[in-house]
């Protein structure tokens, strides 16, 4: 849980200050590289962190001042303006998918490197 929270906070902070959406991939990728976890577990943590972070932020904007823009984007997407809430889910879903894939990639790289290093020792 702490790892998920740490990732989410780090994603939010880096995106806010460094102005790039790519942190939702880079942070879980780094955690995947660093942490000892199964690929599925790492991907789950990444999804929870990235998805939670984006869902939470989108929900915050939606509830405070983003209802109008969400409606317009829903209309642009063909969902219909009244389904503005779907944009919150879409943001959360995309954040989760990207973060999960990145975390999975991180763990996979880590596993491949460790295997090679272990093999070399043998």
């Amino acid at each position, binding site marked *: 849980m702490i790892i998920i929270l740490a990732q989410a906070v780090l994603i939010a902070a880096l995106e806010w200050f460094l102005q790039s959406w*790519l942190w939702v991939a880079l942070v879980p990728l780094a955690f995947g590289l660093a942490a000892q976890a199964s690929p599925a577990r790492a991907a789950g943590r990444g999804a929870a962190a990235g998805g939670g972070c984006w869902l939470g932020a989108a929900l915050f904007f939606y509830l405070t001042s983003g209802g109008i823009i969400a409606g317009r984007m829903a209309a642009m997407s063909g969902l219909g303006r009244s389904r503005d809430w779907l944009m919150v889910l879409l943001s959360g879903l995309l954040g989760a998918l990207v973060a999960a894939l990145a975390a999975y*990639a991180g763990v996979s790289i880590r596993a491949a490197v460790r295997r090679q290093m272990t093999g070399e020792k043998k």
Partner: protein
Amino acid sequence: MRWLKAVFVVFALAAAIWALHTPHGAIPPLGKLLDPFGGFWRNNAAADNIPRKLLIPGLRGRVTVVWDDRHVPHIFAANERDLFLAQGFLTARDRLWQMDFLSRYTGGRLAEVIGARVLEMDLLQRRLGMTWGAENFLNEIAGDPDMRDFIAAYCRGVNAYIESLKPADYPLEYKILDYAPSRWTPFDVALLLKYMAWYLSGEGRDLDLTRTRAALGEAATDALFPFPAPFQEPVVPAGTKWDFVPPAAPAGRDRSVKPGTDLDGGQGFPAGSVAGLVGSNNWAVAGRKTKNGFPILCGDPHLQLTLPSIWYEVQLSAPGVNVRGVSLPGSPGVVIGFNERTAWSMTNAGSDVLDFYMMKFRDAAHRQYAWGGGWRQTSVRHEVIEVRGGKTVTEDVLYSHLGPVPFPERRPGIPDWVPVGAAMRWVGHESSGILHALYTLNRALDLDDYKAAMARFDCPAQNVAFASSDGHIAIRHNGKFPLRARGQGRYLLDGSSSADEWAGWVPMEQVPCLEDPERGFVSSANQSPTDDAYPFYLGWDYGTFERGARINEILSAAASVTPEDMIGMQGDAMSLRARTILPSLLGILSPAGLKAEEQARVRELSRWDFVYRAESTEPTVFNRFWIELVLAIWSDDLEKGGKLFLAPAADKTMELILREPDSPYLDDLATAAHENLSDIVRLAFGRAIGHLAEDNGAFGPRWRWGLANPVTIGHLGRIPGLGAPPLAVSGGRNIINAASGTHGPSWRMVVEMGPVVRAWGILPGGASGNPGSRFYDDGIRDWAAGKTYELLFLQSAGEGHARIAGRTEIGGGR
């Protein structure tokens, strides 16, 4: 195996990131866009909050902005330079993408940010010489230090705003299209002014009319496209005496292109010509006809309606100026508005300021062209267009001394109205004093100041109505008009003969004008400026008579006029076309031979009061009936060799029906029988009812005017979801409230010029260009209902008012 898996997953991640980071055709970069920290979520209504303090680098003094309840900025500065700097900053804050898009569109730089799919659009703008025209404008400004400094200050304000932005703050459209704003320059300002000039005075029907003449002969063409057109009530009333001595106009001895010239291309019988174009209205009523004894000025310029709104409302106040109205986003000053002493509004003049000359090139290399018995050299302008995701394109645009030759040779994609091998001479390409004219108008204190401003008001030519608090009203059909023989430039001109070259300009002090007329009002609605007694030829293709005549009818009968009366008049939905023509048509439509359904519609039309109410079905029936009638009368006659040419205007069609019932044009050439007016009318009515049933189902609520013909206000960049839903509006083409299809009143304004100026106005949109803002489209519902808001016009930054939403203090910094 693990390496293989790792490589595969990393590859999948990279592919996903690339796919989400990059636009794909019309699909925006979804990763960036859905990111709540930097994507569309940041374009929310929080931007509507009023900052208490702002910093604009470059300000010399303090500026106070008072925001009213509709988010309109009222800017108070200590000097004019700061005023324009702040105007640039605040306009960009609300409308940056709109400014950028229109400048890119006009200057042919859209492909740079959108890609090859808009390259043809860019190429056309370059070939039409828009960048050349903008450069000529800047050359004029270079000799006008005050204007140069004010434009520079405005640009500095815009750039200060751009520099303050992080990517997350970019307007939504930048995020959807995935590009960043670039620096705003005087060249961009010039391009915007050229955009408006082209929109209001470009294109033309020279090619179509010439092809019509080639098919029908000159006498028939002149009869079908008469000038002045029938029923007209000119801006300057018929019979007005002109007390000046005009300079001699040229003989125009060779004012037409030679027979046999290649006239292929052209748009043929355009659907739009059946419905007619929308236009603008303005009028001013003298104090002796108003209840309070003060002049009242009214204006509603009709343009294509978009979101963000075309205009940006603003009040600009500094020592020597306190002006309120609407500005063109991206350009300094106020275009239509009022100050404490004067008010003005514009309608498009419609006079002909663009001629095409068919050139005779010496050979296929196009290096020389015949002129005045010899050969002249062409020049080439290298137009470089950056293409996003593609190779840079360099287009060599050919120029003669008359202007650009957009298409020396036939090629795919030539616009319908551009003749191949023709040079274009357009006033809009010349240097221009339009910005200086607006600057002077913003500060005008009386009639003399208005006239001084008009002396530099060149292109686009406008009917500028005026009223002042000292009791004057006036109107001028004002612009830079070529000195030509009567009818010269109506058809394509011979580009090898110097006899057709423009011989100079109509003196600015001799343009059609009317001051303090006995009838107690001035008005215009895009109709002919004068009768035939006016000594200069200005053009022939003006608006039809209906709106102008209706305005004159109401104002002639009016007494004790109030601003509220004028607001109501701007929403007038009476169709003079229906009132003029329908009784005669109904007289022809006797019940015998009509189906029961058709008889029912005839009965309803016979009881109709000719008012285009949104909830009525009669306007829908009459409108379709008229379209079918025009098609039935003209399409067969104008069809030659499989091609259709220009359709006569509605007023000519009405004249034919009312005054020439035996005209051979009424016979349908496609049939062996000889049809008369009665046959054609019955045929058209049957078709109209049939088509309406196909389009709207059986007669019922869906036939209501507002539902069957809604007004649509789309997004400027045609991005789905960012426009407004269809609107049911009372009014239509050729009606004072000329809201129809995608066009309509882009700003309504009524100003009472008393000791304390009172004004009302509304935009079909709002102040903000942010689709996530409450002020993006907050005026649309009331606009559709014909309502207006009283305009806050403050005398000082400290003045209190219940409708003030907040204040921002702006300081300079570095």
